[in-house]
């Protein structure tokens, strides 16, 4: 049976006692080794979920359970060892004087032996394509490079859950792709649940499951293919529909008998090829 890593039970949250509810009665579960994408417009509550997951915020109502433990002010120190988090702005998460110091920082706090640290520094920096920058000072890196180091730093502590909170938003397209491939390969290799909070539709398409947030509530919880078939409602809640889904629709409108809801180019081309060779 799949193991539950994260559980939200009727969680509600607001800033202050008078503020509007940012999250309203949210319940969901995330299993080990699963990739879940959380999407939603700005202010939909998705980043609040991330902050609740590692105790930067605590809910006013409901319960959050991570790896069997209820998140509260006592348990959070233990839980943070299992939850690695990378935020959008890398300038706010750099602590080391050099790139390798930064990657080492999290490991030092967890008492990882020196030899193991050296090995992991090399591995994780190579995984994010920053192996040539071990001794570089952070302020000499570009934004994208800093973010890759931030991801390496988190991967180095081998968490059970890796949360990327719009962590690729500031990278260029190939940098973004590189990071997603890196993360996917690490997730495939190790027991790692992955939560990507994103606007990037390619990242959503790669996920096992998608949670769509709208105005603080869970709007949909489905596999990507089901989500992408609901083009009109996605647009209504301020989200974008992928190119391939729009093209499939236009093809149908032009009289081409597309038989699937394609998630990527290959699937659509394959379907077109079948139609083509049938004639």
């Amino acid at each position: 049976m799949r193991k539950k890593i994260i559980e939200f039970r009727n969680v509600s949250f607001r800033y202050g006692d008078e503020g509007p509810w940012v999250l309203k009665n949210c319940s969901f579960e995330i299993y080990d080794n699963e990739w879940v994408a959380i999407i939603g417009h700005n202010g939909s509550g998705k980043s609040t979920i991330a902050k609740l997951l590692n105790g930067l915020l605590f809910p006013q109502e409901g319960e959050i359970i991570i790896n069997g433990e209820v998140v509260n002010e006592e348990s959070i120190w233990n839980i943070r060892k299992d939850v690695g988090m990378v935020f959008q702005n890398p300038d706010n998460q750099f602590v080391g004087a050099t790139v390798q110091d930064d990657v080492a920082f999290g490991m030092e706090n967890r008492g990882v032996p020196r030899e193991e640290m050296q090995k992991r520094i090399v591995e994780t920096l190579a995984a994010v394509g920053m192996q040539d920058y071990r001794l570089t000072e952070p302020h000499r890196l570009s934004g994208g490079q800093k973010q890759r180091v931030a991801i390496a730093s988190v991967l180095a502590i081998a968490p059970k859950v890796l949360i990327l909170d719009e962590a690729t938003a500031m990278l260029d397209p190939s940098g973004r792709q590189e990071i997603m491939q890196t993360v996917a390969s690490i997730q495939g290799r190790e027991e790692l649940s992955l939560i990507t909070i994103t606007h990037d539709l390619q990242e959503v398409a790669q996920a096992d499951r998608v949670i769509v947030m709208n105005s603080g509530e869970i709007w949909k919880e489905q596999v990507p293919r089901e989500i992408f078939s609901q083009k009109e409602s996605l647009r209504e809640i301020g989200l974008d529909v992928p190119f391939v889904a729009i093209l499939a629709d236009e093809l149908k409108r032009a009289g081409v008998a597309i038989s699937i809801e394609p998630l990527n180019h290959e699937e659509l081309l394959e379907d077109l090829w079948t139609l083509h060779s049938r004639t």
Partner: protein
Amino acid sequence: MDITFENVTYIYQQNTPFAHKAINDLSFQIKSGSFVAIIGHTGSGKSTLIQHLNGLAIPTEGKVSIGGYHLTKEEKPKDMKELRSKVGVVFQYPEHQLFEETVAKDIAFGPQNFGVSEAEIKTRIKEITPAVGLDETLLERSPFDLSGGQMRRVAIAGVLAVKPDVLVLDEPTAGLDPRGQKEIMDMFYKLHQEQELTTILVTHSMEDALKYADHVLILNKGTKYMEGSPEEVFSQKEALQRVQLDVPEMVQFLNEFQEKFGTAITFKKQSIKELAEAIQQQIKGAEST
């Protein structure tokens, strides 16, 4: 204002062990009134280039001309402030620069520093507020009570209130959701046309470059790698991939289509609807043979 870079080189921390050449022998021209997209891998020199446009950086070698203002190692414009009132720069995450008590005061800060009269500033705020999609009732609120998208609009209004001729946008949609991104880009495009601005957009989004720009400049390692209309530049997939850049998704799809079907559909900035019709023709074409 026409903008010209002539053999510009810029070295950070020159004559120190940390010397780093961010721009290397870069030459290009931007015609007044055009909408130019500047694209490049992280570290390609985009941000350094931008800093030359309003004199935050002075070329180590070569010459930058913005209209009648010239920047060289030897010669700086006497009135740098005047140049800066002509070139408005919207930096990345401009909402981080908000600081005033009210939205109106924050928008007024720029023009005040350039000596614009209070009466004129009031008129400008009246004009700009709706143009950036802000409600007038927000003017007396603290900018820090607003949503991220609204804060960004306030910061942009502050740049526009100076009435620049050249508008430089450094990844203006980063961090916004898809709807916010489209709204902000459509807003800039409208301003570009209505106020006949020269607009320079630094972006990672090939889709935005394709949609809004009439000229594209690709940077690599601090120098010009490619230049041309979006159709010309984005048709060259291999050349772009050599510098770790992608092509717009439609071009990518057309390439894959050609590989699979052996017949090409030419990329000419067509709509997705037009593309669907072209594919339908190709499949039907096979039917009749």
